[in-house]
């Protein structure tokens, strides 16, 4: 079942088109990454999906509900949790009170609120700080509290807008690990980010947005979109004889030599590794490493974003 579905979703601010005809589907339990540079329309898209901004045209449904219908929008907001790019906590109030207010707004019972507050603050390492004012928290702690707030009512769909932006590496890792924990619980997660490494680590599929949707696929599919895979062989020592032998044996194939590192383009890299290693050894080369490397997600991302720019 698709939890999120858009078709030609468009948002204009006057003459400026912020999001242009975006269409995609996100399955239940999927972690879907939304990659794009600043100003690409990621936050605007999330705001439309969360019923925070009206769309100019197109369609968007969350859990079968239409974001454009008033009654549906209340149902949608009941089933989603949102971690905005600005955490927006009530800083004079304690962590517990911040979560309790949101639990009440989602119609939770007092016992349910207490249980989930303890659960999520515990999971995020904030339970001991529950009575401390949110304003006294570090940036990382505030981000974790905002995540707990988004989860307080156990939403089916979680929207996270740059959840690790401006966090130190340790806090970023904690948040990423937490997203992976949520993935185990089969929650649908929509992750806005411009952190390619993060997207690659946690997302099942990724969409690249630059006002328009440039590409959608699994991290592997996107990696191979530009350049494809190649066999890489690292020699103990650079050798012109080995390069010459390879060029002779694999005539017409792109072979790139970078000192002791050789790259051989291949349509079937996994199948060709033994042949290439054999050719290297026969030419007198000593192999330190041989394996398959793909194009990087970064290469695909940059090519798609620059092409549009």
């Amino acid at each position, binding site marked *: 079942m698709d939890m999120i579905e858009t078709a030609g979703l468009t948002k204009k*601010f006057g003459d400026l088109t912020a999001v242009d005809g975006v269409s995609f589907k996100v399955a239940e339990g999927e972690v879907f990454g939304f990659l794009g540079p600043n100003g690409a329309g990621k936050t605007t898209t999330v*705001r439309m999906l*969360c*019923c*925070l*901004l*009206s769309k100019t045209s197109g369609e968007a449904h969350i859990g079968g509900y239409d974001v454009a219908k008033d009654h549906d929008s*209340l*149902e949608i*907001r*009941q089933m*989603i949790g*949102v971690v*905005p790019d*600005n*955490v*927006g*906590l*009530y*800083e*004079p*109030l304690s962590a517990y*009170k911040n979560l309790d*207010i*949101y639990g*009440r*707004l*989602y*119609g939770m019972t007092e016992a349910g609120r207490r249980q989930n507050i303890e659960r999520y603050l515990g999971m995020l390492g904030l339970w001991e700080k529950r009575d401390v*004012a949110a304003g006294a928290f570090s940036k990382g702690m505030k981000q974790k509290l*905002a995540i707990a*707030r*988004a989860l307080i009512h156990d939403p089916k769909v979680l929207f996270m807008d740059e959840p690790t932006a401006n966090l130190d590496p340790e806090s970023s890792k904690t948040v990423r690990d937490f997203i992976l924990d949520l993935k185990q619980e089969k929650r649908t997660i929509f992750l806005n980010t411009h952190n390619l490494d993060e997207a690659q680590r946690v997302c099942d599929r990724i969409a690249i947005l630059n006002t328009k949707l440039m590409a959608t696929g699994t991290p592997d599919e996107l990696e191979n979109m530009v350049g494809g895979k190649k066999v890489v062989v690292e020699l103990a020592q650079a050798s012109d004889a080995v390069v010459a032998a390879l060029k002779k044996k694999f005539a017409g194939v792109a072979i790139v030599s970078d000192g002791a590192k050789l790259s051989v383009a291949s349509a079937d890299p996994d199948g060709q590794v033994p042949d290439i290693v054999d050719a290297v050894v026969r030419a007198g080369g000593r192999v330190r490493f041989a394996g398959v490397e793909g194009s990087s997600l970064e290469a695909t991302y940059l090519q798609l974003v620059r092409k549009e720019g």
Partner: protein
Amino acid sequence: MRFSQAWIVATKDFATFTKKRNIIYTVLIVPLVVSVALPGVVWYVQHRVNGADVGAAELTILLPAFVFFYLIIAGFIPTTIASYSLVGEKIEKSMEPLLATPTTDGEILFGKGLAAFVPPMGAILASSVLFMALMDTFTRGALGYYYFPNWDAAALLYLAVPLAVVMSVEWNVFVSSRVSDVRIAQQLGAIMILPLAGLYVGGEIGLVPLGDLNTTLYIAAALAIVDLLLLSVVRETFQRDQILTKWK
């Protein structure tokens, strides 16, 4: 419109206000000063050595003018709360997660309105009881009867004052959508006391017959009309699309 959702928004604001000293001081101290200081002036004048007592004729002019102070502070006190409630949320960027909950714009607006309405009204009504009790105590001898309560004071405190508080709240919601600094919002928000202060001055120079029930009812009717006009402006202003994209 679900009152329960609006009340949660309001109680959240109440909890926040208790952490803000300037809000507590404004809400409690201003009405308290009015309720104690004005009877204190009357008491002092009546007990000063070698001074002439304030006569019954003067008191029947002074007392309704003093009650009118509550209408003026009704236009002032909500300014502090409403401006913090909205501009404070803008500064802390806490409006977006609130809008993402299953709460309608109208419920949030109503909740914000309640948060800015209830504390000033509670403080004004409570302090007015003290004011009337002290005034009756100090003027019973000169007047020969208890001046308070009376229909004019009741109309002013239970009709005109709530309408003035609503006017102030609505005006402050509008102002808060245009500025991003709490102090500027408070300064602009306080503009609403000018017409009320003008009425007071009009009363002092004999243009407006303060203490007359009909006058108070006319003022209340005018306030009700202003409230309705401002309500339409505020409802137009307080929409999620506008809040997230056009509010400064």
